[in-house]
Structures are given as C-alpha cells and as structure tokens.
C-alpha cells in the first residue's frame, strides 16, 4: 500500500535521485535503508543495555518483573534492596529498552518483508 506525502527535499538531492532512475523506487529504497540503519543502531544499543542489566541482576527482565511486581517471592525485594537499593531506576531503564527493542524489531521486520 502506498500513501501520498508531500515532503520538501533539497534541489541537489532531487537532481541526484532523478539521475538514478525511477524516482519513486529510489526514494522508497533510500527510506528503507535509512530506517534499517537507524533501527540496527537502536537494536544494538538496546541489546547492549539489556545484557548489562541481565548481568547485573542475574536474570531476565521477565523474571525480575515477576519478582518485584508480585508477592510470589517476598524475600526477593528485601535481598535485592540490601545490594541494590536504587533498583527502580534500573528497572525503568530495563523495561524501556526491552519495549524499544521489540518495537524496532517489529518495524524492521515489516520493512524487510515489504
């Protein structure tokens, strides 16, 4: 499916893009590569941050969340806070990077399929 958008681009870019052949195809291809570039960078950043947190807390985010967000293991928070009293800050970060990673993977998968 295609949508018609009006976007201003520099004249020199327009001239170069037109010289490369099918203008529409070139623009689509350039946008695809741009999104994949940005996406790959963010995926890498998210994965690095997530790995650091998994290493620090010796578990996955899912396990961590199930232990702080429920009363299924009431000793966990007590022990956690002795070692990491500011865990909430890490938790927020961890959740954010997991969410962002999943969003980017989803976006990239759509683009790669298209």
């Amino acid at each position: 499916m295609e949508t018609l958008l009006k976007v201003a681009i520099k004249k020199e870019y327009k001239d170069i893009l037109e010289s490369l052949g099918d203008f529409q195809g070139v623009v689509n291809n350039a946008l695809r590569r741009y999104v994949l570039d940005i996406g790959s960078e963010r995926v890498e950043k998210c994965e690095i941050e997530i790995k650091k947190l998994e290493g620090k807390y010796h578990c996955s985010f899912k396990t961590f969340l199930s232990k702080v967000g429920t009363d299924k293991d009431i000793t966990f928070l007590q022990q956690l806070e002795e070692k990491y009293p500011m865990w909430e800050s890490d938790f927020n970060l961890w959740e954010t990077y997991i969410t962002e990673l999943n969003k980017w993977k989803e976006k990239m998968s759509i683009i790669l399929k298209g």
Partner: protein
Amino acid sequence: MEGKDEYYFERLMNLIYQKFEEVVIIRKDITPQVFILEVNCIYKSYRVVISEIVDLMGRKYAFYILKDNSIIVGFDNSPDYRAIKLKYEEYFKHHYYERVPHQHTSKKKGIYLTKDMRVEDFIEWLEQELENYLKTC
C-alpha cells in the same frame, strides 16, 4: 510521547543546574521515541539521584536522596508489589505489575503512596518538606 525532546532536556537541565550543585549527567538518551535522563547531583549535604524516562508507555521516574550511600528518601512509580498492596489492599493481586507512585522512607524501611511526581514536584518536596521529614527519621 508527551513532547520530551532536546528542548525539554534543556529546560529540565536548567532547573537542575539552578537548584543543585555538582551536577553530573550519568545517562542521556533522547530519540523521537524515548527520553532517558539520569543525573547525579548534590543538594545541601545530600547526594541526589534523578532518573526520568518518557517513552510510548508513559513516564517512569525514580528520585533518591542519599547520605553516606544510604537512602534517606526515595520516590518512584515502579510496579513494586508493596505499593500495589497499599493502594489496592485485598484486591492487589488483580493489579500485579501496575505502576504505582510511592515514597520509600529512610533505608527503605517504610513505604507510602504519593501522587505522581515530576522533577519539579520532587524539587518542591526537597525545598518544602525535607527539613521536616528529616526530623522524623
């Protein structure tokens, strides 16, 4: 996302530089989808940690005041089951994983529900409540 961008960052940092000393930016990651800021600074003789994240899921925060590496007071909205229990009492199990704004007291020995806090609210609390709070510690 509620417009958290470089402009918001500048505004927030101006406020932080104005109110605190020895300000150090520990983490800054700003994209159109995510705003992440973590700052360490000093307020009077206390170490302060300010952590604010805004993403597509909403706003997440954790603010701490420390003395000699021990928490004097902390505010956050993590889904800590103890805060969920305080808010929903016997129905808390239906609200597992829900974010609940709350306050931790000295050495995290007590926990109270609070309103949602922004950096500005935290600074206001510091300026207006810290002195009285310290008397109760």
